[in-house]
């Protein structure tokens, strides 16, 4: 039985975008803060911090979920994938990112990392989603700039690109 008392720190080791990393965390530290502050991976954004806005969505063992509703200690031994993993090492955008660029699916970009991670998971499960299905997944995110139309188009284009 693993136990982390409130006034102690524990070492959390996880695989972030294919690299094994570890850092100290308190029991109450959220995965969002662990990624950004302890590991320096600031691609994951923090919006509402109660699971509504979706900006902090990451993949944990390949499954899209809210990093702000996950404790850092719960990510022990897990594989975490964040937006930093999407582009090539030389900076070339992946097809989903490129489709976002082509379709003006982002303006300020604050919500974008979370949305990209949601659809990274979803398009693996359902490579050819209907517009309604895309909107359903997108309902787990809040974007205050785009009005969502561009995002829906971008996901449709990305889905076509791997036909």
């Amino acid at each position, binding site marked *: 039985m693993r136990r982390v008392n409130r006034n102690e720190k524990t070492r959390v080791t996880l695989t972030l975008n294919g690299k094994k990393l570890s850092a100290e965390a308190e029991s109450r530290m959220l995965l969002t803060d662990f990624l950004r502050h302890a590991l320096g991976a600031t691609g994951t954004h923090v919006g509402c911090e109660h699971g509504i806005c*979706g900006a902090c*969505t990451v993949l944990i063992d390949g499954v899209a979920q809210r990093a702000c509703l996950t*404790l850092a200690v719960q990510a022990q031994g897990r594989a975490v994938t964040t937006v930093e993993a999407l582009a090539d090492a030389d900076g070339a955008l992946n097809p989903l990112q490129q489709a976002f660029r082509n379709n003006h699916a982002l303006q300020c970009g604050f919500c974008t990392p979370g949305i990209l991670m949601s659809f990274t998971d979803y398009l693996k499960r359902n490579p050819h989603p209907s517009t309604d299905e895309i909107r359903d*997944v997108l*309902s787990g995110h809040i974007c205050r700039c785009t009005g969502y139309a561009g995002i829906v188009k971008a996901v449709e284009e990305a889905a076509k690109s791997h036909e």
Partner: protein
Amino acid sequence: MKPRPFDYVQPDTAEEAIALLAEYGDDARVLAGGQSLVPMLNLRLIEPQMLIDISRIKELDAIRDRGDTIEVGAAVTQNKLLTWPELKQKLPLVAAALPYVGHFQTRNRGTVCGSIAHADPSSELPLALAVSGGEVVLRSARGERVLPAGEFQQDMLTTARGADELVTAVRFPVMAGQGAGFHEVARRHGDFAIIAVAAAVEKDSSIRVGVGGMGGRPMVRVIAGDAGGAINGWAEELEGYEDLHASAALRRDLFKKLGPHVIAQATGGKA
């Protein structure tokens, strides 16, 4: 915001989790998917001394077919149940209700039992359990007891769970071949429902109808004959309540419209 400090414990078995609950009782909270609990922690609406994380307990992460009921363990996520191949055939009402629960991203993590134990009055799963006539399995150092949904959920965020008890599973009666309907009204898809209605056709072709969001817990009634009239009368009796999202009158009106619609879904339009 960030949670207040707490001790975090990750037991390996249900037995260990129950022993912790026996020791810490009300000071401890059970963490399964955390999709309701962690927001409350982050907002400091609750300040438990200890979190007991049951999400990695293997024996709780199972969907068991017990013949006349389907038992869903406390670590089973909503998406795991949603993608269970036999769901549509065996639990048509749950299949209809689950897509309304939160969002794709929260269903990946949120558990079926967690939603029922949280007991939000407008939640879909407590309503589906109540209308199905399901049960909640509670275990403690004192033993095991099984409560019908209607006895388990008592009021808004209030259940019959003792401080030393762990909800280890919920049981949905198999409803193969029975018609089922579910619909809700929310400001945006995935938001908390203003009202939600579920219906299931019984073997004697009477209809069990339940409504969430009209009071502190789901209300269930068996309707035979004139469904529209029965819903109208019931809506007036229920009164409803007023909050930021809707007046009591709007809730009653929504129920009057939604009730017959969901009953028609359940009966295949023969209502």
